[in-house]
């Protein structure tokens, strides 16, 4: 064998082939690369031509925004007045009108906290304490009865604050509970294991609606006379227990995906069970299951609307009430679009947050 001759000049001369871009090139590359894709492109295009302009005309051109219901009835387009005129009722429900500033301030502080939580650089003990203080402050503001605030019975809480309250308390409590259940399900102690399995399977075997019914109707029958537990609290508990079971199964999937070597390395260093889980296993397992966890949380967020059936006046209920008023009858499309947008914003932020978190926690990335 001899040394193979290398044409260094040629190697230096050649360049990677240039891909022709430009509008036509882009269209070909992305929309018409193949029969099926071209067909789909055409179908979607026709669909958009047929439906988008009329929708825009209805929603923005012919629409009325701040009129009376009378004007609405005569107009062709969307009647967004149904929302603007009932805005405060839809957002705050039957909470006393002149006290709306209290749930408003509560939500403002909630959003502030959520904003800081969104960015990992703000995560600290201070933020945790801010959350605790914030939640207490929100409860006090909503309920009143001290500091000269007029008491407002929880039966009158409603609308968006109620939805957010049930969701945020529900999700933050369900998550750790779910993690504990998942660990319990894999426990070496049979007693704990069977308890967790039974719990998870029982809860997953019934729909949330029946849990809510049980919490609102059956559960009080078992309480000793004179003892009552607030209805929102009961619904909240049902949501927490329900969501936790699903979180537990998702987390268990993450635990099973863990490499055995990680446990062994932790054991070999002398870490105990608690340390191994907290420092080694859970940080990795929980990270793997961020996407399915967020699915569970997103559906739990939407499922809070089921509390309507036990007569809690959440966002969706407030919206329905508006439509039932005689003068706004017939504008359900507008109202439901508005509610859908609010729910979408909530779900979309959650998905967005999870994607960002996933990227930030990705340590495999080569820098």
């Amino acid at each position, binding site marked *: 064998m001899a040394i193979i001759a290398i044409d260094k000049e040629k190697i230096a001369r050649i360049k990677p082939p240039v891909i022709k871009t430009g509008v036509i090139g882009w269209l070909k590359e992305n929309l018409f690369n193949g029969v099926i894709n071209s067909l789909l492109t055409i179908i979607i295009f026709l669909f958009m031509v047929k439906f988008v302009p009329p929708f825009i005309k209805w929603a923005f051109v012919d629409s009325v925004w701040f009129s009376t219901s009378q004007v609405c009835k005569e107009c062709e387009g969307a009647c967004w007045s149904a929302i603007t005129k009932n805005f405060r009722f839809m957002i705050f429900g039957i909470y006393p009108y002149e006290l709306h500033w209290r749930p408003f301030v509560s939500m403002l502080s909630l959003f502030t906290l959520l904003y800081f939580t969104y960015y990992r650089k703000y995560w600290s003990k201070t933020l945790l304490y801010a959350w605790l203080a914030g939640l207490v402050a929100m409860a006090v503001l909503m309920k009143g009865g001290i500091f000269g605030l007029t008491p407002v019975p929880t039966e009158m809480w409603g609308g968006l604050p109620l939805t957010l309250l049930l969701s945020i308390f529900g999700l933050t409590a369900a998550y750790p509970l779910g993690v504990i259940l998942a660990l319990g399900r894999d426990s070496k102690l049979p007693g704990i294991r069977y308890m967790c399995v039974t719990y998870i399977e029982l809860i997953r075997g019934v729909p949330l609606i029946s849990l809510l019914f049980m919490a609102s109707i059956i559960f009080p029958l078992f309480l000793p006379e004179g003892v009552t537990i607030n209805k929102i609290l009961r619904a909240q508990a049902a949501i927490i227990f329900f969501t936790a079971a699903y979180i537990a199964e998702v987390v268990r999937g993450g635990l099973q995906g863990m*490499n055995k*070597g*990680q446990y*062994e*390395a932790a*054991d*070999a*260093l*002398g*870490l*105990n069970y608690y*340390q191994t889980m907290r*420092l*080694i296993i859970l*940080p*990795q397992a929980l*990270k793997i299951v961020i996407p399915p966890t967020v699915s569970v949380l997103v559906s739990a967020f939407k499922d809070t609307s089921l509390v309507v059936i036990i007569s809690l006046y959440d966002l969706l209920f407030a919206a329905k009430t508006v439509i039932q008023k005689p003068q706004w009858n017939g504008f359900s499309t507008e109202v439901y679009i508005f509610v859908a947008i609010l729910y979408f914003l909530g779900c979309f932020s959650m998905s967005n947050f999870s994607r960002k978190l996933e990227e930030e*926690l990705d*340590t*495999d*990335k*080569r*820098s």
Partner: protein
Amino acid sequence: MTQSNNPASDVSNNDVIITIKDLNKWFGDFHVLKDINLEVRKQEKIVICGPSGSGKSTLIRCINRLEEHQMGQIIVDGVELSNNLKNIEKIRTEVGMVFQHFNLFPHLTILENLTLGPVWVRKTPKKEAEETAMFYLEKVKIAEQAKKYPGQLSGGQQQRVAIARSLCMKPKVMLFDEPTSALDPEMVKEVLDVMIQLSDEGMTMIVVSHEMGFAKTVAQRVMLMDDGMILEENNPVDFFENPQHERTQFFLSQILH
């Protein structure tokens, strides 16, 4: 490779640090370790080789209780391994282990990988643990990578980090389970060099490995395991050049082609 002193003189005293007596272990019905007897003296280096599935990993994993044995005795530094959790914890802090697949913690930086054990198990103050960690990272020649994550390092570098991680616990004994067999060929030497250096510093080592050069350089005794038994034991020169047992001869002919 660095040339070590005459292996025999490495053993400056005859204190026994590990005693394994009539050790038997089963996986279900499968008798994986059969009547193993072994004494390891302080600062001794033992290399164990043998065909795949012969029980080498299981044997050394019994020494720090990653596997539980059913019969016989294992005594490490005067402490007997039993179901007593205190004893297991004590032995694990004194016995370091290096795995074939490194098993670094991928979500922690190199430095955090090294300080985790000292901080949480030995309760060393964080600052001190970091200083120790940097000391050992220098030793395995990888200090400049301290802030990186394991996924950003090559296999050889990861294995050196894994060795440093064990050393940070200041173990009295180090176990190595085929530390170089998952590595690309060009990275084997950098890991073996670190192990030879460790050996020169007087560490007690039990190494499962088929690296003959390494065995000749550091080991006082080389053993052949087959079918759950230790079939032959000798000094490295005689073991490789003049094997007695037919299984040893067969095995050596296999790894030498």
